[in-house]
């Protein structure tokens, strides 16, 4: 007991005696070193990558997914949403995007994944769909990466039995590229009202 307490006390004393152990200067220096390393990376990699297209990586229930940057409209924090009655489970609800009501899809339900914790912080990625945007909920946002279409495995072409509808391809580093067109073609996003068929 006393030995452990003494050790703790010694350590506390040591901390008190060395206040410059994790100084701001060291932190900045470490940060600058990282950045220098990145900038010192070979430039050819960027040229080779430029042959593909940009995707925005996202994490859904510990799985890494990607969405084509061209089909995206905006990202934001999903602060709050309102469930819509009478809709399938994969339609999470609607949210307010700068004064406009936008539907939000629940990809966890759609892809059969474990739903996030209720209080967890989530983000929404809005897809371009004509005049309107359709949001999809993700657990976290990754960075924008560039994918080579030749390196993608296409499940609907290979026919290896994976769920194919929402996946347009899988990158070598197991990044799953979602098919936004298929997502936007979901029934819940279509207006089936008889009186006013022109509005969608």
């Amino acid at each position, binding site marked *: 007991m006393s030995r452990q307490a003494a050790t*703790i006390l010694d350590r506390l004393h040591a901390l008190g005696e060395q206040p410059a152990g994790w100084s701001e200067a060291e932190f900045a220096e470490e940060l600058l070193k990282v950045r220098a390393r990145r900038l010192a990376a070979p430039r050819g990699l960027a040229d080779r990558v430029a042959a593909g297209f940009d995707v925005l990586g996202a994490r859904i229930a510990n799985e890494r997914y990607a969405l084509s940057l061209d089909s995206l409209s905006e990202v934001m924090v999903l602060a709050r949403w309102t469930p819509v009655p009478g809709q399938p489970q994969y339609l999470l609800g609607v949210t307010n995007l700068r004064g406009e009501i936008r539907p939000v899809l629940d990809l966890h339900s759609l892809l059969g994944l474990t739903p996030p914790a209720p209080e967890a912080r989530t983000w929404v990625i809005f897809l371009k769909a004509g005049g309107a945007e359709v949001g999809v909920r993700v657990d976290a946002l990754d960075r924008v990466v560039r994918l080579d279409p030749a390196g993608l495995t296409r499940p609907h072409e290979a026919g290896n039995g994976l769920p194919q509808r929402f996946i347009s391809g899988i990158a070598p580093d197991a990044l799953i590229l979602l098919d936004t067109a298929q997502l936007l073609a979901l029934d819940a996003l279509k207006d089936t009202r008889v009186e006013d068929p022109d509005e969608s």
Partner: protein
Amino acid sequence: MVKTAHRSWWKNLKLRRKFSTVSLGFTLVLAGLIAFNVMVLRSQSQNSVVTDMAGRQRMLSQKFAKEVLLLGNGVAVDHQATLRLMRDSLAALMEGGEVVINLDTGARADLPPAPSQEIRAKLAEQATLLRQYDASATGLLALGAGDVRRAEKLKEMLVLQAQLSDTAEAAVKMLSFHADSSIRAMIGLEIIVGLICALSGLVVSSLIGRQIADPLAACAEAARKIAEGDLRIEPLEISSSDEIGMLQEAFDEMLKSQRDIALQTRSACDALTAAAAAILSSAQEQAAGTKQQAAAVQEITTTVEEISLSGKQVAERSRQVAGTAEAVATSGNAGLHAVRDASQGMEAIREQTETVAENIITLSERTQAVGEIIATVNEIAEQSNLVALNAAIEAADAREQGRRFSVVAGEIKNLADQAKEATAQVRGILEQTQKGINTSVMLTEEALKRVELGREKSTMSEHVIRQMADNIQESVHAFQQIVGATNQQQIGLEQVTQALHEIRQASQQTAQTTAQLEKASLDLSQLGQKLSRTLEKYRL
């Protein structure tokens, strides 16, 4: 006895009285016989007197004749006196009466009357002749001396005198015959009476003898049977209340008491035999017990010696322990001081630990403030990231025009990421710091508690050590007492050993005595059996 009332007076009579009665009876009979004899003898003497008188008449007649002759011849004699005597005697012989029997002394005697008619007739004839004789004598005297008729008269008187003498002779003979016959009758009577008396005496004495001898014989028979040991005989019947009866009664009582005594003796003998057997078995048990006792005493002696040895060891150990305890008491005092120092040290530690805890709490609060700042920074990084991503999206919309912008957006994104990483690192460090602080807080709290506990413990230890010191002091005293007690115990054990030796000797003596007792009880048992066999002779 009850039966006494039913018995005749004879049976109630005492033996002495009986004998007295019998002898009185015999005396009476004898007196009767003597009286009878006296009477017979008296009648005999009377008869002899009468005969004598009758014979005297003859002599008197002759005397008268001589006197008459003498007178006739002139000699003066008193012939009338002789005649008178003759007449008186004759009258007395005939009718009884007093008469002079001795002429010289003049003694007189009573004569009985004539015993029979025949004699009376003879006497009467004699009286007639006497008158004739008298008349003749008178006639003769009346003649003168020379008278012729004198011879004739003399002759006549002499004839008369002869007749008279004859008559007297005949009367004497008749009287003599009568006396003789009377004597003979008396003798016969006396013989008959004597025979009757003898017979009756025989019968009476035999009856009395039987009355006395039969119960005595029965008593003798019973006594013989008792001597043979037959006590089942019937009690004797008490036939009288005299000495024989008393003897029978006493004999019955003797038989009863003999029987009681025999019964009691037999039961006592049985009891004696049983008791002797019990004593024998007890003695044997006692002998065995004494042997066991001797063995036990031996064991006890050995044990006591062992105990004595152990006691010595205990005393030695106690001395050692007392020394050790004194050393411990000294150590205890030192320990008491050490514990007081430790208590003071604990107090100092507690104060320092409280200060440390306060410092740590302050540090924790500051770390939380840093964490809040870091959270703000992180939020800013997040927003920057979002902005960068949206910029990238916008750049993608702008295609080639937006390409440079997208690079900038990527750089912003990278900066935001780096900021996030940095904040994540800081957060991690902070979290670790917080964890460490929390641990420190907990440890400090724990340390505080433990210091408090330690203080209590040291206080308790102080008490304990003080008590221990006291106890050790007490123990020292106790051990000293133990040493003293053990020495006393040693002395006591030596006494016990001595006593046990004495007990052993005593038990050996007891064993000898018990052997003697056993032998004596065996003898007693045999004696009881012998006595029992002897008593079996008595048939009850």
